[in-house]
Each structure stands twice: as structure tokens, then as C-alpha cells.
């Protein structure tokens, strides 16, 4: 059981780190959203799942409460993160930021 927790924590840390690096490395807003928001979401799934496994393994009132509350936090994270990043991308586009080095831009042709 402990090994599973360690593996999940390691995967979560790796993907969260990739998100942070992508934020520094990518050239414009849209690609940064790709790297940052989604790699951190994927990493957070594994990090929180480790906590859930730990809570259920510990059992009893406190462990169970920890696991269920962590699951609810994960659910809200999964619901709110894509909506937030979509709103940011749309706001950035309507605010006049063009995608960097885009090979094709269909949204431009629509206007």
C-alpha cells in the first residue's frame, strides 16, 4: 500500500513540475495554458489520489473523512479547471492577443 502511495506522489510531482516548466518555456499565452493548466490538473489527480488511498487505508472516522473530502476537492478541481482555462483563452483572444507563429487561424477568418 505504501509503495502505491509513493508511486502516485512521484507521478503527481513530475507532472506538476512539467506544468511549471511549461509555463516558463512556451512562447505565448495559448501554449502556456496547454502546458500549465493541464499538466498541473493531471498531476493533481495523482497527488490527491495518493491522499485518498492513504485515508481509506487508515480507515475509521478520521481516515474516511480525509478520503471523502479529498475526493470532493478533486471533483471540484476537475470541474472548475477546464472551464477556467477555457475562459482565460477566450478572454485573451477577444482581448486581441494573437497566437504566436500560428500556421492556421480559423477564428480570425470568422470576423
Amino acid at each position, binding site marked *: 500500500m505504501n509503495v502505491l502511495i509513493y508511486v502516485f506522489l512521484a507521478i503527481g510531482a513530475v507532472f506538476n513540475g512539467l506544468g511549471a516548466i*511549461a509555463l516558463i518555456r512556451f512562447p505565448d499565452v495559448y501554449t502556456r495554458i496547454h502546458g500549465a493548466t493541464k499538466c498541473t490538473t493531471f498531476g493533481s489527480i495523482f497527488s490527491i489520489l495518493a491522499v485518498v488511498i492513504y485515508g481509506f487505508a487508515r480507515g475509521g472516522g478520521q481516515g474516511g473523512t480525509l478520503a471523502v473530502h479529498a475526493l470532493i476537492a478533486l471533483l471540484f478541481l476537475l470541474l472548475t479547471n477546464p472551464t477556467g482555462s477555457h475562459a482565460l483563452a*477566450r478572454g485573451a483572444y477577444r482581448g486581441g492577443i494573437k497566437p*504566436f507563429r500560428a500556421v492556421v487561424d*480559423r477564428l480570425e477568418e*470568422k470576423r
Partner: protein
Amino acid sequence: MRKVAAWIVTAAFALVVYLLLVLWSGSIGLWSSSELIAGGVLSALVGLVAGRLLWERGGWRMLQPHRWLLFLFYLIGPFFLAMARANLDVAYRVITGRVRPGIVRFNPGLRTDLARTVLANSITLTPGTLTVDVDDESGEFYVHWINVKREEPRPEDVCGPFPTWARRIAE
């Protein structure tokens, strides 16, 4: 009649979430009496405020239970697989810095708001693709794609089997 039904269903959803939050708090089942009373009052209020907003424009068909089972299966099966694969792809791109970005347009042919929301959120949560805009009348998706393979893509090129699943779940 419709308003009362919306109120009751929304209040029931709020009550379920509240009961999950205060699990293991007391002796009546797993809950204490004060938590049960507070939860009832709060969820009734939430139903009054949010009931009108939540069920307009075709939300009622989500009350069929098999759609929720399908959604759960979709979440832990095909969706999670696609997400893991795309994450590895983006990890490769973060390290090497090879990107070919662009905004492409495609029409998955979904009609209801809920199906479009499911598809848009699935696309956004899969790295490599990001929904920038959705045309409300025609249902066309404008997707920022980090590695444009073709400039006039079919829906399968961008997001694999997601449109079929969105149609199965919410239409």
C-alpha cells in the same frame, strides 16, 4: 409544476453533496441531528436560488441513471486513457520545445448545450487541444491545437472518440 420539480431536484443534489461533506459527524446513521437540520435548510435555499438556472435548455434528460453510469465509465475508461497519452505527448513537447500551433475549426454536430459542454471540457482537459470558442448557432468548435497535423481536420483527428461519447451521454 415545472418550477417545483426543478426546486426539489436541485435541493436533493445539494443535500447529497452536503451529506458527503459531513460524513462521520454523529450517531443518526453516520450524521448528527444538527448537521441534518442545517443541511435540509441550506439545500432548500440552494434549490430556490439555483433551480431556475440549472435545468433550462434540455438538462432534464440527465436524470436518467444510465447516462450517469455511462459518464462514470467514460471518465475512468477512454477519457483517462486519452488524457494520459496526451499528457506524455505534451511532456515530450515541453522538453524538446517542438510546437506547431494553430487554431482549427470543426463541427462535431452536437445540438444540446450539455453535450457541447461535455465535449468542450473533455477537449480542454486533454493537453494539446484547447477550446477557444464555440459558435452557439452552428455548433462549430474553434480549437487551439499545439501540433496541427492538417488544416481542415475531421473531428476524429482532433479529439478521437469524444464526440461519439458526448452524444451518447448527453443527447
